[in-house]
């Protein structure tokens, strides 16, 4: 089709994968939730104490925010997997499908349970009395009278659960489950609002379709129209099959590339994928993984390759709060990863994406601030913004104690919004990244770090333990080692914020490959 926005085309190209995974995970969770809730509801009809406990538990689960519930299952399963590996000799992947299904199943319990209990206990006692009076056994009364009468209310509960689960499944992206949320997370990170909108609309349409099909079954059951029930079930099956068919028919990718939750990572993942494709290797991407999740995912072979930064591992894994020269940090990190986690460091890409404190140039000049040491004086009157991790990272503690920093206010925001916020004067200082293109775009100045409180952050290519003896993967990626300097990455990151058709991670990755190629030709 001509004239189609390339972002829409890209979104459509990913739809079979995202929709299929979304349907699989949410329908599995819904089915499990219903299968679990109904027997519990039945068992609790004549046991008020059990009923109270079960409903209270389900309500508590519901109060946990969806994202947190999903995130909690990851370490839990990781622990279980380690345990089963020790006891049974076989672990399982704590990433993606399993934690997502379990969390969403828990999430679906309350509406089904509450409605089933309400439906079954809310039956007119006179009708129950009549059921026994005409000579029904308890079981016959349940099947012939109680369940049919409770059915419309139970179905309403299932519909509520379905809408919740389909909606909440979009939050499964950071724990490694592909879903329609991938559009939203990726779009948010790469400022691709077409993606965000596409993800929202697709999830909403899916929820609507499932809800309406369930409503059809519900009304069919209520009016006892077999045809309507059959039509509803047929429709649901078609939605499931239609969404899953492409997933099943597609061959499994040989390598899985991971990416964290920010724009640069999406570009690098696309870059790695193109390198692998060029080398004739099939690859799939798992993007939007949480910073804590992604290293575990690599160590447990949930993904094969991703780019991390030496300073991050130095601070978070090696628990170092001091700074050291680049080469020293790189060597220590590579050694630790190899020895402790079996992860191979293929090499550094050639640029650093360090944390740095930056200010609007004019404001810095007006206040006479050039370094973080200068900043310390003015800090009590200033507000600082950082990403969601920054203020809980050891680097921040190190900078703060080295320079005695105390700000008037500190705010967490999406990195994309930090720079405009500083430019607009909403905040005075941002915890920026050195490879970030927008530092220059918004005319920010990076403050010196005379005490070297911030460790170096070289971008490094990491390979999973299972690929330790693989030849094809390192061979395909080796040309990237040392090939991307910070100027190139900064420009690439800036291009990605353009918002146009050539700003997609794939387009930017192609642009980087062309640049690398042309440099080598010289």
């Amino acid at each position, binding site marked *: 089709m001509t004239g189609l926005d390339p972002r829409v085309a890209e979104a459509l190209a990913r739809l079979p994968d995202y929709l299929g995974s979304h349907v699989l995970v949410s329908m599995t969770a819904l089915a499990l939730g219903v299968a679990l809730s109904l027997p519990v509801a039945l068992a609790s009809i004549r046991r008020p104490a059990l009923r109270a406990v079960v409903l209270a538990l389900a309500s508590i689960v519901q109060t946990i925010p969806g994202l947190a519930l999903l995130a909690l299952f990851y370490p839990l399963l990781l622990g279980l997997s380690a345990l089963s590996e020790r006891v049974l000799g076989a672990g399982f992947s704590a990433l993606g499908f399993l934690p997502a299904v379990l969390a969403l199943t828990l999430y679906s319990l309350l509406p089904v349970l509450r409605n089933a209990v309400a439906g079954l206990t809310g039956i*007119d006692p*006179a*009708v129950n*009395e*009549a*059921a*026994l*009076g*005409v*000579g*029904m*056994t308890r079981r*016959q009364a349940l099947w*012939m*009278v109680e369940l*049919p*009468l409770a059915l419309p209310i139970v179905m309403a509960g299932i519909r509520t659960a379905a809408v919740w689960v389909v909606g909440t499944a979009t939050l499964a992206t950071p724990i490694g489950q592909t879903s329609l949320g991938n559009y939203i997370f990726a779009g948010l990170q790469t400022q691709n609002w077409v993606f965000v909108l596409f993800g929202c609309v697709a999830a909403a349409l899916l929820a609507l379709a499932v809800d309406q099909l369930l409503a059809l079954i519900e009304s069919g059951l209520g009016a006892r129209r077999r045809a309507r029930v059959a039509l509803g079930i047929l429709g649901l099956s078609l939605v499931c099959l239609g969404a899953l068919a492409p997933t099943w028919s597609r061959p499994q990718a040989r390598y899985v590339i991971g990416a964290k939750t920010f724009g640069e990572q999406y570009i690098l993942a696309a870059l790695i994928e193109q390198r692998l494709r060029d080398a004739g290797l099939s690859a799939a991407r798992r993007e939007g993984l949480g910073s804590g999740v992604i290293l575990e995912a690599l160590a447990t072979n949930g993904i094969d390759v991703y780019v991390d930064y030496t300073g991050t591992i130095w601070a978070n894994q090696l628990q170092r709060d001091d700074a050291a020269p680049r080469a020293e940090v790189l060597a220590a990190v590579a050694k630790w990863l190899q020895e402790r986690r079996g992860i191979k460091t293929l090499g550094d890409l050639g640029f650093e994406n360090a944390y740095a404190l930056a200010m609007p140039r004019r404001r810095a000049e007006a206040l006479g601030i050039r370094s973080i040491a200068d900043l310390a004086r003015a800090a009590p009157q200033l507000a600082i913004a950082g990403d969601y991790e920054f203020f809980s990272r050891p680097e921040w503690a190190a900078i703060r104690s080295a320079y005695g920093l105390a700000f008037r206010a500190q705010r967490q925001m999406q990195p994309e919004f930090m720079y405009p916020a500083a430019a607009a004067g909403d905040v005075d200082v941002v915890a920026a990244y050195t490879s970030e293109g927008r530092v220059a775009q918004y005319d920010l100045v990076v403050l010196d770090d005379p005490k070297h409180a911030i460790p170096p952050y070289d971008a490094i290519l990491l390979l999973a333990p299972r690929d330790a003896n693989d030849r094809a993967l390192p061979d395909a990626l080796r040309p990237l080692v040392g090939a991307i300097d910070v100027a190139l990455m900064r420009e690439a990151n800036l291009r990605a914020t353009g918002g146009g058709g050539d700003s997609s991670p794939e387009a930017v990755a192609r642009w980087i490959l062309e640049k690398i190629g042309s440099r080598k030709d010289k």
Partner: protein
Amino acid sequence: MPPRPVISFERVSKTHGALRALDGLSLAVQEREFLAVVGPSGSGKTTLLRLVNRLTEASEGVVRVAGEDVRAVDPIGLRRRIGYVFQNIGLFPHMTVAENIAITPRLLAWDKGTIAARVDELIGLVRLDRARHRDRFPHQLSGGERQRVGVARALAAKPRIVLMDEPFGALDPLTRDALGRDYRGLHDELGLTTVMITHDTLEALLLADRIVVIRDGRIIADGTPHALMREDRDPYVRELMQMPRRQAERLRDLTIGPPP
């Protein structure tokens, strides 16, 4: 030799915690008898009825149906053999008229053709219209039509005994009168034994062969309507019969003038 009672209570007591619903009550119901049980609310009338098909178990004493101690009989089978018309009708709201009527035969696993024929027969018997009512749901019927279905459901499996718990209480006077007379006709025609609980003394007097007055779990009067209208030793029974008597006198005055 007196005829063998179809239902008998032998010194039956029923306690609910500290509450004594029935207190050593003895009563025998003869075959083809139409017995009305009257008494104030809380007197134990409904408990008496529920003991017969084991919806309630006696605390003391023996309840017999057709000579058998009900404790020795499977309660499910017992209930399927005994028709029951409920106070608040108790039709199954998700089933049509035909399905409601067919329920006990279905539980007894009659074959489909027999059930369908029986349903049609009963719809006619309780004076409903087959074309208009058969496939309706209870909420689409009037109160009187609903209780006609309730009676039909109770009679579906051809019981010999029918228990009725204030069956016509919620109906308007005209409907109540019509249904009462229709049922009495069925009782005679089908040779049933009926125990009907009512708080309407007039209804009891007009329909029943025999009336039992219960108060505080004990029988305080037992006799034919004729006998109860005449002898009035117990002050409560006297009071109970006072109103219909006054009404009858008033009506007589209205129709044929006051006595000379």
